[in-house]
C-alpha cells in the first residue's frame, strides 16, 4: 500500500485540477456553502481538542491538519 500512495495522490491531484473543472457552482449559487456549518473548519476547537486526545491515546495521529504538540506520554 505504501508504494501506491504517491500514485493515488497523483490521480487525486489530476482529478482535482482537471476533472473537477466541470464541477462546482457559480458565484451566485454559494448560499449553502457560505453557511458556518458548511465550512471545513466548523467545530475547529472541538476538532483540535479531539485530535489531541486521540494523539495521546492511539498509535497514529494527524492527517486533518497540524497538531498542537505535546508529549502525550500518559
Amino acid at each position, binding site marked *: *500500500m*505504501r508504494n501506491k*500512495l504517491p500514485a*493515488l*495522490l497523483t490521480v*487525486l*491531484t489530476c482529478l*482535482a*485540477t482537471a476533472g*473537477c*473543472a466541470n*464541477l*462546482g*457552482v*457559480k*458565484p451566485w*449559487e*454559494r*448560499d*449553502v*456553502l457560505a*453557511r458556518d*456549518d*458548511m465550512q*471545513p473548519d466548523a*467545530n*475547529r*476547537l*472541538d476538532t*483540535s*481538542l*479531539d485530535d*489531541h*486526545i*486521540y494523539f495521546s*491515546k*492511539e*498509535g*497514529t495521529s*494527524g*492527517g*486533518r*491538519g*497540524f497538531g*498542537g*504538540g*505535546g*508529549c502525550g*506520554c*500518559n
Partner: protein
Amino acid sequence: MAEKDKLIGSALAAAACGLLGATAPRTSIAAEPESKWDIDTALLYYGESDDRVQDASLSGLAIRDFGEDRKLSLGLTVDSLTGASPSGAIAGDQPQTFTTPSGRETYTTPAGEIPLDDSFLDTRVAIDAGWSQPFARLYTFNAGVGISSEYDYQHLGLNAGVTRDFNQRNTTLSFAVAVGKDKVKPVGNVPIPFAAMSDAVDDEDGSPANRAADSEDKDVVDVLLGVTQVLGRHTLLRLNYSYSDSSGYLTDPYKILTVVDPLTGDPVVRTPPPGASGPGGIYLFEHRLDSRTRQGLYAELRQDFSGKVLQVGYRYSTDDWEVDSHTLEGRFRFPLGESSYLEPHARYYSQSAASFYRYSLADGAPLPEFASADARLADLDAFTVGLKYGHTTSGGNEWSTRLEFYRQESKAPAEQLIGNQIGNAQMPDFDAIILQFSYHFKL
C-alpha cells in the same frame, strides 16, 4: 482604536509579505468587517475508568479579522492531568512492586491487576498564533507558531502554507509544511534503553544509575497537500495527503517491559537486597526506533440536506513502524427549531501493532533490537459515540455542550504469548468520557 487595529493589521501583513517577497495589499475601509474578534472558548473534562487519566482543560481560540481576508488567530489551552497510566508491565499471579519513574519510591500492584503508575501529575500549557492573508489574486499565505510546555516536555512548532484557488474558486489546492522541535526531560532523567528498573534511592540530587542524559530531543517535519473541491451547491469534498517524519528520541521514558519465565510466562521474581526497597521482578525500560516516517490520506465529505449537515471523514495512515490505521468518523447536525441543533457523532479507529511491540520478554532469550509493551502500539480498536447540543442566543452568540463515550480495546498478539499467558493475557483497555461546554461569541 480602529486606526490602531488597522496599523497592527498592516504591520502583520507587511511582515508576512516580507517573508514572501510580495506586495502587501492596501487596507480599505469598505472591507472592514462588522465584528472583529471571533472567539471560541471551551471547558473540557476527559475522564478514564478505574481512576486512570483525568484531564480538565480550558481552551480559547480568538480570530481577528482585519478585513480583506487578513486574519490573525491566537490560541491557548491549559490542561491539568492527574490519574494513573499503564506502565507497560503485565499483570502477575503475585503482587508486583515497582520503583517510580523518579527512582525514589516504590508502589505495589495487587495480583491479577494491570500495573498502573499513579505518580504523575502534569499541567500543560499550549499557545499558538497564526496569520493568514491573500498575497496575489487567488493565492493565500498562512504562517503560524506554537509552543507547549509540560514539566517534562517542551514543544516548539512553526508552520507555513499556501493555498491557490481554481475553477471560479470551486477548487482549492493547499500546501503546508510544519516543523517541530521537542525536548523530553523525564522525571529521574532519561533511562538507558533496556536498563533494568533499579531499587529506590532516596537521593534528592542524584539520579538512578540506570539513567543517561537529563534530556533528549525530537524533531518532526510534517507536509500536508490538500484539495478542497465544491462538488455541488450542497456538497464539499476535502482530500489531504500528509507526510510526517519524526527523528530523535521517540521512546516513552516511563514505559517498561516485564521479563517473564520462558516456560510459565509469569513475571520473574526478584528479591531486593536486604534493607533496600525495589522492584519484585525484572522490568526493562523500553526502546523504540529513533525515526518514524508516516503517510496518510484523509477524505472528508460535507453534505447539506436542506439545513441538515452530514460530515463523513475517513483517514488511512501507514508508517515504517508497521502501524497502519483506519479511522472512520461521522457527524450529522440537524436543527431543532429556529435556534438550536443536535449533532450525533460516531468514530471508529483500528490500528495494527508496531513491528517491535512485545507483550513481555522471555528471561534468557536474546533481547530484540527494539521493544515496547505500550498498548498504544498494540493491535487496537477504539470506538467513540457522542452527542452535541448547540443553541444560538438572540445576540448571535452560541453555546454548546457535548458528551462523548470512548472505548479502547487492544489485543495481545497470540503468537507472542507463553505458558500461563495463553488465555489469560490482559491488556489495559479502558472507557473514557469527554464532556465539553463551549461558548462562541463575537466582539
